[in-house]
């Protein structure tokens, strides 16, 4: 084996030299012998002749020498490749076409693979990322995305759990950054001191947080991201110790994170600060607001770690039945949390591009078959000269492999461009949660994948023509060549390939159609409020400047009052959580007169709104009344009141009237029960298309807060009011930024629900268009070819009185048959495959007959158009010429 390898290496690097040496050696032999013979009296010419005779067949021995040395297979392979290159260069147009088709097929696969590789295969940029787990508490019986935990529970976990190296917490926060320019809202990651060390990440500059930093009265310090350091701190290496102004307070920079650091669950915020929960957050066990990651100790299996956490949870449930009685621990992997949502999307895209590749293969096989007809004579001659079937097949496969590798190389080179084109369609918010997309590049895995699919492709598209050609009967071919026609076997094979192409294209069209319909259904799904002409943004009042609720309420009333007086503004309200933004805050409550076991109270969304909220959103009143300014602040005698939505009334008061009933939130057991004064229509709280969920509305004036969202109903284009509104805010408090201003339409556009459907529908639609184009080219080729072949038949028919329409019908019928065959295959395949789209579809079934019928009709229509061109050509056949043709 080693000998073989050595010989192979020798042959690769020293082949030319060895060939020369062999020639020299044999020449020396001949000349020495001739010299000896001449010395014995022969004439020089006679001596040389005699020497050659004694030596025997020179080329044969050379070949034997090469074989003895182990270079024969190399030489043969090299000859095949050279021959293949010559064949490719002889038909540059054909070669280019094949390479481009293959580059399309392989290129889209390489692109999707590089994304899949970055998202699903490549390890996360942490130390032993496979160990990292996520822990969260939920009261739901099913898994929810990224559940929260409470701080007291977290503290108990860190104290009790033995099997963990570290358990760390994090939470998203925001702060107004006042630097050189206008105030800016920054995302701030709030983390426990052991967060970065749990991930196994060390700051590139400065130090990590230490345990003392966790203390409530610890120093005001931050660690900044590499990007923030570059963009806002001028990549200053001496930045450690400098002060950053956040919410009007100075924070010392103690560290800069490494450039490749990312943390997708929090969209990789620019600034990181110690967690330091405020009093309520730290003390209340049923206030679940933080996320937890954990790393088991080395040698502790994840099953053991799970078991320990479950045991601790069971103990906590016994100790704190009120808070933890109904809580279930949800444990997962960090990777699952990061890529779980996009996995079905990526796998769907992967499936789609493999269909494109199959079509490209069929297309190229078809092209090769069409050329095979022209090559039949060459084959026949080679067979007559003694080439074996095996040698011919090997030759064809070499040619295919060469084409596939060229196509693969081209596809690979264009894939980064293709990926950037694909990621351009992703909304900013979505992109931030998929940081791995920015690290997509050509790596060994991608190279290996591309090479493998290129080789596999070569086998798929190369084998059919190879078998077809080498099967051919030599004599038949030598005779047939004169007429330049293909055997019926070849025609049948080509038709099958076209039907397959059309079928695959139809499957992609169905997929794209179903997703498009889902997107349309999402946009048409009634969110329960008017989404047009609605501008939204958030305001976060820093507690330094706005010390209490009264200050916040005063600002809110002053600010919204000023907005109302702006021309173009119809009405203004605030709300704690905007609709269609994921759901947000929820609350547990009990209904008066319905005793509930501690910890098992019902839970629903809660929204704090100002009086005009329902008018601004155009949410109808079902019963009772809206909040009124006269409901007051709740402190000076006016009792607190609640409004609920219809879903709430239906769920919790199915056979009674919810109006006038009294409820109480469980976090304030001392508080009295509070009356429901109104029932309103359902707004869609979570995301487009989600079913209506129960909501309790509280009155902002009765319990003001420093953070709220402003909803502005405008007369015209909401974005045109951005400037004036910013002006009002600036003149009131220049330190306050307008956080995430966007129209409701923009919120819908960038929501995960829409993104997860529209994005693949756009990509699969592109792939389907590509596939359809390829399939139509294939169909066109086959029909043209068949028209050329049937010229004589058409001529006879016309001579016998057929008119143009008859000829047109004959040809179009063939195209129609192929298209119908394709539709049959495609519908069958589609019915099998679209069920895998299941989780991406909304408001449409995977077997939606309308979609299937529409795309089938589309396919047949374009197939007929593609057949019409060659059909027209057929009608222009001159019978006289056609009959003389042969």
């Amino acid at each position, binding site marked *: 084996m080693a*000998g073989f390898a050595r*010989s192979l290496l020798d042959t690769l690097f020293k082949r030319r030299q060895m060939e020369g*040496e*062999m020639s*020299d*050696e*044999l020449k*020396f*032999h001949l*000349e*020495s*012998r001739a*010299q000896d013979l001449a010395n014995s009296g022969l004439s020089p010419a006679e001596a040389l002749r005699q020497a050659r005779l*004694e*030596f*025997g*067949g*020179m080329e*044969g*021995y050379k070949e*034997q*020498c090469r*074989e*003895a*040395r*182990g270079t024969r297979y190399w030489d043969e392979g090299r000859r095949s490749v050279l021959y293949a290159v010559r064949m490719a260069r002889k038909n540059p147009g054909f070669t280019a076409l094949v390479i481009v088709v293959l580059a399309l097929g392989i290129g889209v696969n390489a692109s999707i693979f590089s994304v899949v590789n970055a998202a699903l295969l490549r390890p996360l940029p942490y130390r032993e990322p496979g160990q990292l787990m996520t822990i969260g508490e939920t009261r739901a019986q099913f898994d929810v995305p990224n559940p929260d935990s409470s701080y007291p529970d977290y503290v108990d976990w860190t104290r009790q759990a033995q099997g963990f190296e570290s358990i760390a917490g994090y939470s998203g926060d925001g702060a107004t950054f006042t630097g050189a320019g206008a105030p800016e809202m920054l995302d701030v990651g709030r983390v426990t001191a052991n967060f970065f060390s749990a991930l196994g990440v060390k700051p590139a500059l400065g130090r990590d947080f230490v345990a003392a930093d966790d203390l409530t009265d610890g120093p005001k310090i931050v660690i900044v991201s590499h990007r923030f350091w570059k963009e806002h701190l001028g990549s200053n290496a001496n930045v450690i110790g400098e002060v950053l102004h956040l919410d009007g307070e100075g924070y010392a920079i103690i560290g800069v994170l490494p450039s490749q650091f990312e943390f997708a669950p929090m969209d990789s915020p620019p600034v990181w600060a110690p967690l330091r929960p405020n009093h309520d957050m730290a003390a209340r066990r049923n206030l679940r607001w933080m996320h937890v990651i954990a790393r088991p100790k080395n040698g502790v299996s994840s099953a053991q770690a799970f078991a320990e956490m479950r045991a601790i949870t069971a103990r906590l449930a016994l100790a704190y039945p009120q808070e933890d009685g109904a809580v279930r621990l949800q444990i997962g992997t960090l990777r699952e949390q990061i890529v779980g949502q996009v996995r079905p999307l990526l796998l769907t895209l992967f499936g789609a591009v493999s269909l494109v590749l199959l079509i490209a293969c069929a297309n190229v096989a078809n092209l090769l078959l069409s050329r095979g007809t022209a090559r039949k004579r060459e084959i026949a001659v080679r067979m007559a000269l003694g080439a074996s079937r095996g040698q011919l097949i090997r030759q064809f496969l070499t040619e295919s492999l060469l084409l596939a590798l060229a196509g693969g190389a081209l596809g690979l080179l264009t894939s980064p461009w293709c990926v950037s084109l694909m990621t351009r369609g992703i909304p900013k918010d979505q992109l931030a949660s998929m940081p791995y997309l920015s690290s997509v590049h050509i790596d060994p895995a991608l190279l290996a994948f591309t090479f493998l699919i290129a080789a596999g492709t070569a086998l798929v598209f190369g084998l059919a023509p190879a078998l077809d050609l080498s099967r051919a009967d030599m004599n038949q071919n030598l005779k047939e060549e004169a007429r330049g026609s293909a055997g019926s076997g070849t025609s049948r094979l080509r038709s099958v390939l076209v039907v397959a192409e059309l079928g695959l294209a139809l499957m992609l069209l169905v997929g794209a159609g179903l997703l498009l319909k889902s997107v349309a259904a999402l946009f048409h799904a009634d969110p329960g409020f008017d989404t047009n002409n609605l501008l939204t943004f958030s305001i976060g009042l820093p507690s330094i400047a706005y010390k209490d609720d009264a200050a916040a309420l005063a600002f809110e009333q002053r600010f919204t009052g000023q907005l109302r007086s702006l021309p173009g503004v119809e009405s203004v309200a605030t709300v704690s959580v905007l609709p269609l933004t994921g759901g947000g805050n929820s609350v547990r409550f009990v209904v008066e007169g319905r005793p509930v076991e501690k910890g098992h109270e019902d839970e629903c969304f809660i929204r704090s709104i100002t009086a005009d909220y329902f008018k601004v959103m155009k949410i109808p009143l079902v019963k009772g009344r809206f909040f009124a300014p006269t409901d007051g602040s709740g402190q000076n005698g006016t009792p607190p009141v609640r409004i609920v939505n219809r879903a709430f009334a239906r769920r919790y008061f199915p056979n009674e009237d919810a109006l006038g009933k009294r409820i109480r939130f469980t976090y304030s057991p001392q508080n009295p029960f509070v009356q429901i004064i109104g029932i309103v229509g359902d707004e869609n709280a979570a995301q487009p298309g989600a079913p209506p969920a129960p909501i309790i509305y509280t009155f902002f004036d009765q319990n003001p807060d420093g953070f709220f969202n402003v909803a502005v109903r405008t007369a015209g284009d909401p974005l045109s009011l951005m400037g004036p509104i910013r002006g009002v805010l600036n003149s009131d408090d220049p330190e306050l930024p307008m956080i995430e201003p966007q129209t409701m339409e923009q919120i819908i556009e960038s929501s995960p629900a829409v993104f997860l459907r529209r994005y693949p529908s756009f990509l699969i639609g592109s792939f389907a268009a590509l596939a359809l184009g390829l399939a139509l080219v294939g169909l066109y080729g086959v029909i043209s070819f068949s028209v050329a072949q049937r010229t004589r038949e058409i001529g006879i028919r016309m001579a016998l009185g057929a008119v143009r329409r008859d000829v047109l019908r004959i040809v179009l019928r063939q195209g129609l048959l192929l298209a119908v065959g394709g539709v049959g295959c495609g519908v069958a395949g589609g019915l099998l495959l679209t069920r895998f789209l299941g989780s991406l579809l909304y408001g449409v079934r995977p077997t939606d007959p309308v979609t299937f019928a529409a795309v089938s009709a589309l396919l047949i229509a374009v197939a007929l158009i593609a057949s019409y061109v060659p059909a027209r050509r057929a009608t222009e056949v001159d019978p006289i010429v056609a009959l003389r043709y042969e």
Partner: protein
Amino acid sequence: MNPQAELLPGTLDLLILKAASLGPRHGYGILLRIQQISAGAFSIEQGALYPALYRLERQRLLDTEWGVSENNRKAKYYRLTSAGRKRLRQETESWNRLVAAIGVVLGARPEEV
């Protein structure tokens, strides 16, 4: 009667190894040496020598180097390696055993059976 005998299959390698064991020689020299020692008893197609030489070289039984021939020309010289020497010894022994055994068989008389 033809004075030259056909070479038994497989024996060319043995002859080459033996010829090379008498000192480095180029291919033509090895051929001459075999013919000289055997007094022209074998008919060898000269070209057949080279595939055998290449094979033995690849098996590391022969070593090669380029040198200058007696008529002052560049020529490739073959020299027996230690592995080649060992192989020659084994092959010689087994050849002798074979010859002896065949001699005994051929020399057998009816009364000895």
